């Protein structure tokens, strides 16, 4: 495991585990909002950004962040202005993003952009990633009561004084930020899966809200830890696919739990 010996590889592992905790937490609320698949599609919005960054020879994450957040805001605005269903709007933006991304991303870089890669992480990258994860967890914690009230009944939440529109937009942006942190090692195609699978595992194992949030985050961290270990044994798998395979296996094991 030569890459593990390197300090920057250590940063990558710690950052991946921190990302896992945030992804589990965000995924739990995404599952309850029934937007897991919609959220997965959002991760593809990063692809045109990757392509542009490769063309302009700038940091790929900067390009990904730009199109991810612009795409998220575009979905939000289109939905509000046109009155179309969320899945409709997301489907259109997703298809456009994938087409543009595939067209402009150099073919050598496309696989890396889609499925992630073993990346060394600089101290600055580690600190920024850690800061983003800390922000995501703190923001979800702060928003949790408003999210719960909105989940139960948007109308009742509004009558209680919750700004439902604002809460939904904040959640969507936190969702995109989580995807962004996971992009380097999971790729645009797989970053969303760590939001989906651990939440599905957590929901299968628990019936109480607090237990569910903890179980999803723990399942996410186990998937990332074991996935990175698997990747270090079989490097040709790549970190993203390894993590997803472990998470999917955990979910299959959970299916045997008596409900």
């Amino acid at each position, binding site marked *: 495991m030569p890459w593990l010996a390197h300090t920057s590889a250590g940063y990558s592992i710690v950052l991946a585990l921190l990302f896992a905790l945030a992804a589990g937490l965000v995924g739990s609320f995404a599952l*309850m909002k*029934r937007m897991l698949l919609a959220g997965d599609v959002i991760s593809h919005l990063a692809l045109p950004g990757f392509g542009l960054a490769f063309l302009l020879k700038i940091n790929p994450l900067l390009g990904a962040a730009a199109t991810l957040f612009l795409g998220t805001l575009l979905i939000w605005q289109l939905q509000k202005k046109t009155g179309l269903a969320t899945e409709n709007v997301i489907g259109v933006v997703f298809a456009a993003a994938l087409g543009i991304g595939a067209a402009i991303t150099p073919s050598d870089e496309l696989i890396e952009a889609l499925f992630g890669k073993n990346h060394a992480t600089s101290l600055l990258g580690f600190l920024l990633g850690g800061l983003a994860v800390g922000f995501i967890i703190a923001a979800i914690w702060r928003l*949790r*009561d*408003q999210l*719960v*009230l909105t*989940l*139960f*009944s948007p*109308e*009742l939440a*509004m*009558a*209680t*004084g*919750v700004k439902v529109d604002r809460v939904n937009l904040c959640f969507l942006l936190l969702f995109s930020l989580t995807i962004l942190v996971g992009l380097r090692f999971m790729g645009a195609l797989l970053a969303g899966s760590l939001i989906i699978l651990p939440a599905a595992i957590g*929901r299968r194992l*628990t*019936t*109480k*809200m607090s*237990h*569910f949030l903890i179980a999803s985050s723990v399942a996410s961290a186990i998937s990332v830890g074991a996935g990175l270990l698997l990747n270090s044994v079989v490097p040709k798998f790549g970190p993203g696919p390894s993590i997803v395979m472990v998470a999917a296996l955990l979910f299959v094991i959970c299916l045997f739990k008596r409900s």
Partner: protein
Amino acid sequence: MDRVRGKVAIVTGGAKTILSVKDLTVSLDGRSILSGLSFELHAGEMLAIIGPNGAGKTVLLKTLLHILPYQGEIHWAESARIGYVPQRVAADRQLPLSASDLLNAEARFLKLSQVDIERAASATDLTPELLNTNIGILSGGQFQKILIAAALLGRPNVILFDEPTASLDELTEERIYDLLHRIKEEQGKTVVLVSHDLSVVYRYATTVLCIGKGKPCFGPPKEVLTPEALEALYSAPPKFYQHLQDHHGV
């Protein structure tokens, strides 16, 4: 859709007036739902809003809560603290959510204490066991009690109930209305109730507002709900009225 609101002013005259509505007009998706509606509500009253399906009763409640856009004026007194029990909550029954989770979330958001939760739970006869049960496995009546507890949590002095017993069996319906009556009497709250059940309106309401076809009517049930008014409202022969005469000596 742009939100068009009339001027909202604070009612200073008439200490007992808790709500004053003037020339309220609501249109949704280009369709006129309410037009030029005016009425006043006094503290401690129980106002029943009646009318046929699609008359805009639920729309009126949501407009009073400022959830929907409107034109005209809605003046709530400064002292008004409003609780709301919706007609139907399409909550996902698969949510890993208990009544306790819900009430705790609301209490934290409104900066209320555990004592407030206990008070709301006790007022609605919610046991600790029921509070910790997932909402997905509650009966219709138990679910309704949780909605009422959630509405009572912020210590409201006005509660808006939108058909609180829709889709409940007769016995549960009776219990829920007894509960509402008890809350109103014991705590002296002002109540606005949307109901299809005219016998309930006669039993509990001090004032009736009927909306639907023709001119809206407003006043005490015995004065307002004449056979002619009911026929005009529902476009049906006044058989309710005959039935009510037999049962309540109206």
